[in-house]
């Protein structure tokens, strides 16, 4: 099942990699979250790596989308980990974040 605006790939046992495309419309996040969670569950995934590579800024709107997706994943026992965050994105996100984010972070997908 393809999801519009993103690539969702199975990368080993229980792990999925989500690569957002420029065409991804986060205004339609309800449908996107539902489709992502459905596909990861179908593949018996327990971990979702969200690739932030190439995203220069994470503003509050985009952060809301990431938080909502992470919360939705957590409800169905899927851990969401954001990877490859750009320095500029980390800088902007840290400037308005008051506590810990809803998702975990890692440099990249572990070997």
């Amino acid at each position: 099942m393809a999801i519009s605006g993103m690539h969702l790939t199975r990368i080993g046992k229980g792990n999925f990699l989500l690569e957002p495309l420029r065409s991804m419309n986060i205004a339609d996040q309800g449908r996107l979250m539902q489709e992502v969670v459905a596909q990861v569950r179908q593949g018996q995934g327990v971990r979702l790596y969200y690739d932030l590579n190439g995203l220069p800024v994470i503003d509050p709107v985009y952060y809301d989308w990431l938080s909502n997706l992470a919360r939705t994943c957590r409800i169905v026992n899927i851990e969401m980990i954001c990877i490859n965050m750009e320095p500029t994105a980390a800088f902007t996100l840290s400037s308005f974040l008051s506590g810990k984010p809803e998702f975990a972070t890692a440099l990249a997908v572990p070997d």
Partner: protein
Amino acid sequence: MQKKETSEKLATLFGLKIGNISGQLEETGRAFFCADTMLMDEDEVADLSSEFVNLISGLLSAKEPAKRTIPQFHALEIFFSELAHRMLMRGGQVEDVVRYAQQLQYSLIAALERDSGVVFTQSRSVLLYFAQLFDELIMAIFHTYLGEREKTLKAQEMELRETSTPITEIWDGVLTLPIIGTLDSSRTMLVMEALLNRIAKDHARAVVMDLTGVRNIDSQVSHHLIQMVRAVQLMGADAIITGIHPEIARALVSLNIDLSGVTTRASLSDGLKEAFSRMGIQVSQKAG
């Protein structure tokens, strides 16, 4: 009658065909740049004088020689700016260039007088014209000097900042950042920028920030520090703060800064041990 006479002299000056007076101006250049300072050789002074004569001839023969917007005037400004830049680069003083310009003004009037036979030194309007012209040119010299000084100060400031916050990869994937001196907001921002870029470049998994050399911290900086830790964590690396002085600890508490999500250790060595242990690295003494 007097006014008319002086205006006529100014008109004569503007209509003057200037002959080869560069030789007469060379002496001024030699006195300032060759004698004690050794900033130029004699050939260079000759070129300088010749170029100046060409430029001043261009200005005096322009349609409106008193205007400051004409290209001929800009060319003279550039000439003095470049001269000032060159002399400063060679270790000269701005005073030398300014005094040279002042002396050049008198030498030029004298040379023009000799060349044309008109007594320009008796004309108030001619003297006023040259005084105003050279004032502007001296301003150009000062402008260049201030620009150069500002550039030097900025470069020194940057160098000082870079050397006072050296980010070192002490182990594969472990960065250390000893912060020394006073942390202000702009410096914290610079450190953060450098650190985040370094994490991305080196794929660092742990960062040990050592505050042993920091004695003062204010509310804004402590927030920046927490922001820095959070940004490091967001990039997927572990942040460990070490060497927090009791004064800093007290300040952080009184400022209501929440350090609950931040790993702290007493010393840099403890911080490194923590980083190694998180990465599964064990450093042990060689047996025997």
